[in-house]
């Protein structure tokens, strides 16, 4: 991300008691240009604003050893000028027109956006079509921006013991697959990436046939299609866009990681199980499972570790199925002062064992489903988030309509489904677990 900027990536569909029979969902119109650019438009005239987002199918998944962080570095350089708009001009134009802009890079995608009055739509078209092909990649700006990204890594990771732990756990859980490295990249890689590397990455992945435009707001779909044609229609498609396939070999036993930090005051536990992702059919049961296990103060982990045993400050679990490759179902616990992380880990396993044995109440199941359904409704209250949920799905090669059946599919999950996926995936041999330990100075 270009600037400190965080949001929940969790969006889910509904149909619940909250809806009084109405089915809420997303209605969009779409078109694919001759050059392969896909455009998706949601008309919403409730406020005279619009969000314009360009999604590229590139992220740290598409990188290689030695060049990690290149997608994120390129995202930064996308603000550093084209032939037509010199460095800094892009941001000034957006600001002067009352717009919010930014970008974010993940493992699977990179996205750019402007939010502003709907009559500014054309400026997005002009600026985004320009930087899709005409990026300057000036050597001086590049060297300086590299320093900024290294500062970003220091800020987000190097001086944050918990982030270091999460990074190490992912690196241990994924050995063959590019989810091994962090999106921001390893420090030395950031330093070593050349302008030529960047230029190559840009030419390879920034093309209309590797992009999706999502527009949500006070616009007419037909007019948006016309404008996109006008501004982006003449950009030639890339001839060859590599979409490498990576597979993580099966894990054959528990993996353990220790991170020591002189500045950590309390131990922290972070663990993850390899689980399937979207399209597997098991993602719904996994989502319900993770809510029962660790979403909210009344979830299994929080209730046991914090309320009953008082051995953690907080604890929880999360899982996102909307990824290009299968990821991890993760759990965490902030261990209390004077408590050994081993004690907390033992309790976590006891809770997992209970679920594996079938100890789930119908009420717990319904609670998890209600949480997922309401979160979806809350998420619909913003053009930006709706565009994002569409963009994520399309960028990982799925259809945005998936959103409109999500909550129904969540509602269909049975207790047996949850127990089945818990037994299948929440096993010792499938776990990578890490401890953050305060380093005692000698």
């Amino acid at each position, binding site marked *: 991300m270009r600037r400190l900027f965080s949001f929940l990536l969790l969006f889910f569909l509904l149909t*619940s008691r909250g809806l009084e029979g109405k089915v809420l969902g997303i209605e969009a119109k779409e078109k694919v240009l001759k050059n392969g650019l896909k455009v998706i438009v949601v008309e919403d005239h409730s406020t005279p604003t619009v969000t314009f987002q360009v999604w590229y199918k590139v992220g740290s998944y598409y990188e290689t050893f030695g060049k990690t962080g290149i997608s994120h570095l390129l995202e930064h350089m996308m603000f550093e000028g084209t032939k037509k708009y010199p460095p800094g001009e892009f941001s*000034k134009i*957006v600001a002067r*027109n009352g717009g919010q802009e930014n970008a974010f890079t993940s493992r699977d995608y990179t996205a750019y956006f402007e939010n502003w*009055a709907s009559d500014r739509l054309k400026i997005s078209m002009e600026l985004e079509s320009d930087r899709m092909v005409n990026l300057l990649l000036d050597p001086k700006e590049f060297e300086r921006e590299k320093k900024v990204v290294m500062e970003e890594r220091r800020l987000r990771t190097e001086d944050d013991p918990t982030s270091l732990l999460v990074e190490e756990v992912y690196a241990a859980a994924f050995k063959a697959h590019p989810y091994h490295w962090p999106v921001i990249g390893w420090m030395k890689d950031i330093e070593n990436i050349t302008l030529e590397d960047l230029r190559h990455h840009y030419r390879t992945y920034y093309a209309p046939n590797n992009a999706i435009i999502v527009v949500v707001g006070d616009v007419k779909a037909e007019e948006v299609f016309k404008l996109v044609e006008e501004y982006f229609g003449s950009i030639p498609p890339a001839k060859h866009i590599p979409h490498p396939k990576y597979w993580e070999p099966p894990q054959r036993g528990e993996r353990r990681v220790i991170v020591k930090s002189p500045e950590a005051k309390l131990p922290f536990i972070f663990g993850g199980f390899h689980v399937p992702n979207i399209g597997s059919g098991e993602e719904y049961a996994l989502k319900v499972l993770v809510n029962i296990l660790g979403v909210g103060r009344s979830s299994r982990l929080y209730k046991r570790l914090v309320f009953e045993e*008082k051995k953690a400050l907080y604890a929880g679990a999360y899982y996102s199925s909307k990824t290009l490759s299968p990821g991890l179902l993760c759990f965490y616990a902030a261990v*209390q002062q004077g408590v050994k992380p081993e004690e907390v880990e033992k309790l976590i396993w006891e809770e997992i064992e209970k679920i594996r044995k079938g100890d789930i109440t119908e009420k717990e199941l319904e609670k998890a489903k*209600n949480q997922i359904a309401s979160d979806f409704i809350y998420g619909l209250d913003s*053009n930006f988030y709706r565009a994002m949920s569409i963009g994520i799905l399309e960028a990982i090669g799925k259809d945005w309509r998936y959103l409109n059946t999500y909550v129904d599919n969540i509602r269909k999950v049975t207790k047996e489904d949850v127990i089945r996926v818990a037994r299948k995936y929440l096993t010792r041999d499938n776990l990578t677990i890490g401890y953050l330990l305060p380093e005692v100075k000698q």
Partner: protein
Amino acid sequence: MSRLLIILFGGLLMATVAMAKITPKITKLDNGLEVWVVERKVLPFAVFKLVIPAGSVFDPESKAGLAYLTSQMISEGAGNMTAVEISDKFEFMGADFGVDCNKDYVTVSLKVTKGYMDEALKLFATVVTEPTFPAKEFVRVKNEVVGEILKDQEDPGIVAAQEFDELVYGKEHPYHRPVKGYIDTVRSISLDEVKEFYKVHYLPEGSILVVVGDVDYEPLIKELNSLFKDWVGKAPSYPKVETPKFHPGKKVVPKDVVQANIVIGHIGVKRSNPDFIKLYVANQILGGGGLTSRLFEKIREEKGYSYSVYSMFLPTLYTGTFRIVLQTKNASADEAIKDVISEVKEFVEKGPTEKELEDAKRYLTGSFPLKIDTNEEIASYLAFAAFHKLGPDYLNRFTDMVNEVTLDDVKRVAKEYIHPDKFTIVVVRKVEK
């Protein structure tokens, strides 16, 4: 294309979104609780924010953390329910419930879908008006707060900000203390003190409830009157506090980090200062939001020293602070501080250009409607406006207030309220022995 070029460069069009007016209906319940309601039926849910004048400014010095601890205890048992039962009920309804405490006030928040609204509101009212403060949970929550304070010490940004407040305010001003207090003071707080703090401060007269979303005004008020009928009394007004003095100086806090965390600034103004909006606009040019401020240009876009750099005037009840915040690798810290100060000096001496002012106003007025386009955001802004008595039409007046700011205003307020020669500088960094 020609029209576009005009928008891009000439700026003949105003960048202001013709914003739908957001005007809350305001009333007082029978018990004196002020209620602000915005009926916004875009989606079947609503957000409730109850603002209670019970922030950490009320803490006795030796019991720093009392207000925070009290705020964290209200949902740990209420009516005949245990802590777990309360969470379980809210979560079963898919509702988000939370309690936040800052230096000025406490906010109790609820977000819930329409179908569960009555039930959730009833639970919300029970938590606010009938907390039971069980001794068992008190010991646990106190230990958790101590743990949170330790965790905060892991974060060099939080350490720098807290040290800055200690120095800028000095011991005599309540804002010098962190909201959560100190480990020693938190440990010394008794359950009786928490109960007493609740009894004295958590009262309807002086508190404000903001509601935004899919609700109907009349039946809602009726329901609220019935839910809160036994909750009566007047919250004490805020204590008199001497205006803090400047405390110029520099302090280095040693920490084993790779990046120096820097906070530079001094005392600022109260939110009620009539110059606040002028300062807000001036600060936008110097170091405000977006990717275009002078500090952003200099420190990040020219020098590459920092990922994030910004300045702000904190909008608080008592005199707030003006602060510049940045992080850079230990080796660049001194240079970056020098550059920041010279940039601020130039801004104060010469002021911005007419064009910079114009651009800043366009950014602030144009992006404002985007900041209030969800139930959650509208409720947050209104709760803030209600607490600071900015008026029910504050959101609707904001654009005009910004547009009225002149170049002379900005130059004047920059000189009057920003004093680089009186800066307090805090640097959390690695110190080689």
